[in-house]
């Protein structure tokens, strides 16, 4: 059964093949992708594919290439490159020999949503084990075919050799090309030793960037369906209380008579316009006169925090250990209360979706990061069985959490169903900012104490915020489904990891006040959900203890940390910044207009570890704050692609600067008034700080996520830098000149 060189299959010698590398496979990847990702429901079986089967994860093609099926969304974070690195590593393939397909309920396994930095943390190990198991199966096939033991085989670019004869070899493609493994995924195959990694932990360039730079990348917004209409939603400019949703009193159809090609589509309180021509749809949505029922029942920005704190809340103790009455007897005490505003996702491209809904099936192209969850809600909305609904993820702009992607997908599906035509529906800027599920506002109160030696003795935190919104506005409007919040779930509530979890504190109590959210704005997860708010309060209180002790804030934190992850990110940030120990606020010039300060902070989300240092400048005359330099360090376990993670750190630090200096959703007693980039300003070039990213690499640990874990640290470093510069503490953000001047003049 020894197989001599099969000239017809592999015309090149092995050495030539290796030299040719990826060139051999040119042109295959997009062909497979295009076939697999056609926007058709024909010929595909509805998913999810059985995750217990290797075939659901990996396909080997006869041209000795592979396709990885992964259930994660490329969001510009580079996971579609990094997960290929993981698979190619275990399979001993070159990066040019492997490709992937987009998230699709008819193609990709259900790995849950792409959030909480899950792609590498949860997806990395799954993909690694599947690839290792496929490799193991392929080696067993090769051993049988070549009649040598598995142990003597070696793989290079999918070519299997080891017979001792250079002319006797086989390849993945030859062994199984385009056939199924029919193999259960047991997760038991041995994994490669990290010391042998060739691709993992390398800064492999992202595969999407060249197309994006050339302008040839196809974003969701570029997709078209044959015979489609353009659609826009029609809602009040800016949401009111979540419970009220959208309420139509009357619609004046004649108000768009001047745009004869456009027409109004309505189901109960869901209103949209459609037209063959996109500009007609845009104009019609702006021109259509609708009388809305709107109530004056919101607290507005002015009364928001008092209403949250003073209203009835549901309480839950998240941590309770030791005895926090130790606070009373401690020589150094800090009591600090601060607030954080609603902040918007503000994806740079307002959400968009395409839908083709037929009597018995539906296809929806959207930017959902959790296609199986979206399928479920769309099936309910359309009255179709889930298996008849196909949801495809296509990349839109970065979204940093749950922006309006589900709402837009539902609106497109509903409109398509109502007009019995394929539809492309895009939100306008005011729809996206005005009807976002915002990162919820927060009120936090910390009471911390330390002994004379600088050991933190006691830590108490109370936090007020509402949960995330479960029902999208489209479903709420069209079906009358009442507004509802997500049930209690950790990421919506106070986070023990960011709130003092990095320090060794004997006495601790964390109390969560769930504010019933239906009377407020809609909410959902916004990158590093709630952690910026938590760290802003908590790390300022900790910093104040160091100040009272006349200790350097880095050294003070260090002496209260034994966990090596926290210690290493703290040190990495401090070292990057060439931190010179001294007590905070010890170098404030008496009468200078411009003062500078430096602060340090720690924080994270649900996994990984973040440390940051900030250098800022405050103009004591105008109240203008400039962030000069941010240094951020992440320990995210094994970092598969350091270049991607450095980019993630950079993006997190710049976004944090934006959120601390500029971002706040404004609303009055009736509705949201932040509807564009003037009324919801974000950081621009001129305010962009210098950025220094640092990675604490852990080759022997599992990836733990790097998409959001340095933001809380950076937020608190900025706040502490303000104190160092001015000797005053900010109790709310963003740091508008008005608030800064108030802080400088009003107390302390």
């Amino acid at each position, binding site marked *: 059964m020894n197989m001599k060189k099969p000239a017809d299959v592999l015309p090149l010698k092995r050495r030539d093949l290796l030299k040719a590398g990826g060139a051999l496979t040119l042109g295959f990847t997009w062909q497979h992708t295009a076939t697999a990702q056609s926007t058709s429901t024909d010929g595909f079986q509805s998913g999810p594919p059985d995750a217990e089967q290797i075939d659901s994860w990996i396909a080997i093609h006869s041209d000795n290439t592979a396709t990885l099926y992964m259930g994660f969304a490329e969001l510009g974070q580079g996971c579609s490159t990094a997960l290929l690195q993981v698979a190619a590593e275990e399979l001993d393939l070159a990066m040019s020999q492997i490709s992937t397909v987009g998230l699709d309920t008819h193609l990709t396994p259900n790995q849950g949503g792409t959030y909480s930095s899950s792609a590498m943390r949860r997806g990395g190990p799954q993909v690694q084990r599947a690839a290792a198991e496929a490799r193991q199966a392929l080696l067993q096939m090769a051993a049988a075919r070549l009649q040598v033991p598995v142990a003597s085989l070696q793989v290079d670019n999918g070519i299997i050799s080891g017979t001792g004869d250079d002319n006797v070899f086989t390849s993945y493609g030859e062994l199984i090309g385009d056939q199924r493994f029919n193999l259960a995924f047991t997760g038991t195959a041995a994994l490669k030793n990290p010391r042998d990694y060739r691709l993992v932990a390398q800064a492999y360039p992202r595969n999407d960037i060249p197309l994006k730079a050339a302008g040839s990348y196809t974003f969701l917004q570029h997709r078209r369906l044959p015979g489609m209409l353009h659609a826009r939603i029609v809602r009040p400019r800016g949401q009111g209380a979540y419970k009220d949703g959208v309420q139509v009193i009357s619609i004046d159809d004649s108000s768009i008579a001047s745009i004869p090609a456009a027409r109004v589509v309505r189901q109960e309180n869901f209103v949209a316009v459609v037209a063959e021509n996109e*500009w007609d749809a845009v104009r019609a949505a702006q021109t259509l006169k609708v009388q809305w029922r709107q109530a004056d029942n919101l607290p507005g920005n002015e009364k928001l925090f008092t209403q949250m704190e003073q209203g009835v809340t549901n309480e839950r103790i998240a941590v309770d250990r030791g005895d926090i009455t130790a606070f009373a007897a401690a020589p150094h005490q800090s009591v600090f209360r601060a607030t954080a505003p609603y902040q918007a996702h503000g994806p740079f491209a307002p959400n968009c979706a395409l839908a083709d809904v037929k009597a018995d099936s539906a296809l929806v192209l959207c930017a959902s990061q959790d296609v199986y969850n979206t399928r479920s809600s769309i099936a309910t909305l359309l009255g179709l069985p889930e298996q008849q609904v196909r949801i495809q993820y296509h990349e839109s702009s970065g979204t940093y959490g749950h922006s309006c992607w589900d709402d837009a997908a539902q609106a497109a599906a509903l409109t398509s169903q109502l007009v019995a035509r394929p539809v492309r529906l895009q939100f306008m800027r005011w729809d996206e900012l005005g009807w976002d599920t915002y990162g919820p506002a927060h009120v936090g109160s910390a009471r911390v104490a330390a002994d004379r030696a600088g050991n933190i003795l006691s830590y108490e935190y109370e936090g007020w915020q509402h949960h995330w919104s479960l029902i999208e506005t489209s479903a709420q409007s069209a079906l009358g489904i009442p507004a509802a919040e997500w049930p209690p779930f950790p990421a919506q509530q106070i986070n023990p990891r960011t709130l003092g979890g990095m320090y060794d504190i004997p006495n601790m109590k964390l109390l969560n006040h769930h504010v019933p959210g239906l009377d407020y704005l809609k909410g959902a997860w916004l990158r590093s959900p709630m952690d910026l708010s938590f760290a802003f309060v908590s790390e300022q209180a900790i910093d104040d203890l160091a100040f009272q002790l006349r200790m350097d804030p880095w050294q003070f934190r260090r002496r209260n940390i034994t966990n090596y992850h926290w210690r290493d990110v703290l040190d990495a940030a401090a070292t990057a910044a060439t931190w010179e120990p001294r007590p905070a606020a010890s170098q404030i010039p008496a009468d200078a207009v411009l003062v500078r300060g430096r602060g340090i902070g720690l924080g994270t989300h649900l996994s990984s570890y973040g440390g940051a240092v900030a250098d800022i400048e405050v103009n004591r005359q105008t109240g203008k704050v400039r962030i000069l330099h941010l240094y951020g360090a992440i320990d995210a376990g094994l970092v598969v692609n350091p270049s991607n993670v450095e980019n993630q750190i950079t993006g997190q630090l710049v*976004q944090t600067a934006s959120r601390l200096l500029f971002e706040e959703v404004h609303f009055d007693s009736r509705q949201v008034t932040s509807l564009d980039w003037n009324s919801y300003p974000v950081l621009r070039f001129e305010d962009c700080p210098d950025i220094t990213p640092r990675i604490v690499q852990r080759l022997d640990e599992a990836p733990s996520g790097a998409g959001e874990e340095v933001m809380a640290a950076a937020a608190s470093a900025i706040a502490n830098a303000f104190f160092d510069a001015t000797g005053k503490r900010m109790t709310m953000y963003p740091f508008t000149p008005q608030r800064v001047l108030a802080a400088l003049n009003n107390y302390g």
Partner: protein
Amino acid sequence: MADQTQTDGVQLNVNGEARILLSAPDTPLLYVLSGELQLKGPRFGCGLAQCGSCSVLVDGVETRSCVTPLAAVAGKSITTLEGLPAKYAQEHELDSVPPLTPLQEAMIEEQAIQCGYCYNGMLIKATELLASNPEPSTEQIKSAMNGHLCRCGTYPGIIRAIHKAAARMRTRA
């Protein structure tokens, strides 16, 4: 330009090609380029000229296509992201059109892009900048680019890439 009617079409030059466009003359240029011409460069971001994702060059000047009616650019030359390499080749008298401009190459080398949606505007605006200032300082880059937003926070990478491209273009010139 008030004389332009829908049936006559509006004449203009897009990426070096003479075009007669049939969209209504009051249609914003963005919808003509992305709809009638199916170009992927200029894209919708705000519709209010606040973000720069729809930017194109009109006779070399960065212009927000989302608020510019088609009729207002009749007879003018439009360059979109897709047309930057050809424009570069023409201006630098190259024998052939390169696949990418030095600026695009630098953006790739710096791995500056995150989601990349803003890069249409970033590349258009930075092209305009480098045409008038071959050696901009970081402050000049920030000032020139300030009307272009990046929500992913990739400004530092863009600044690096502009410096790199400027240096490379000076060497080649």
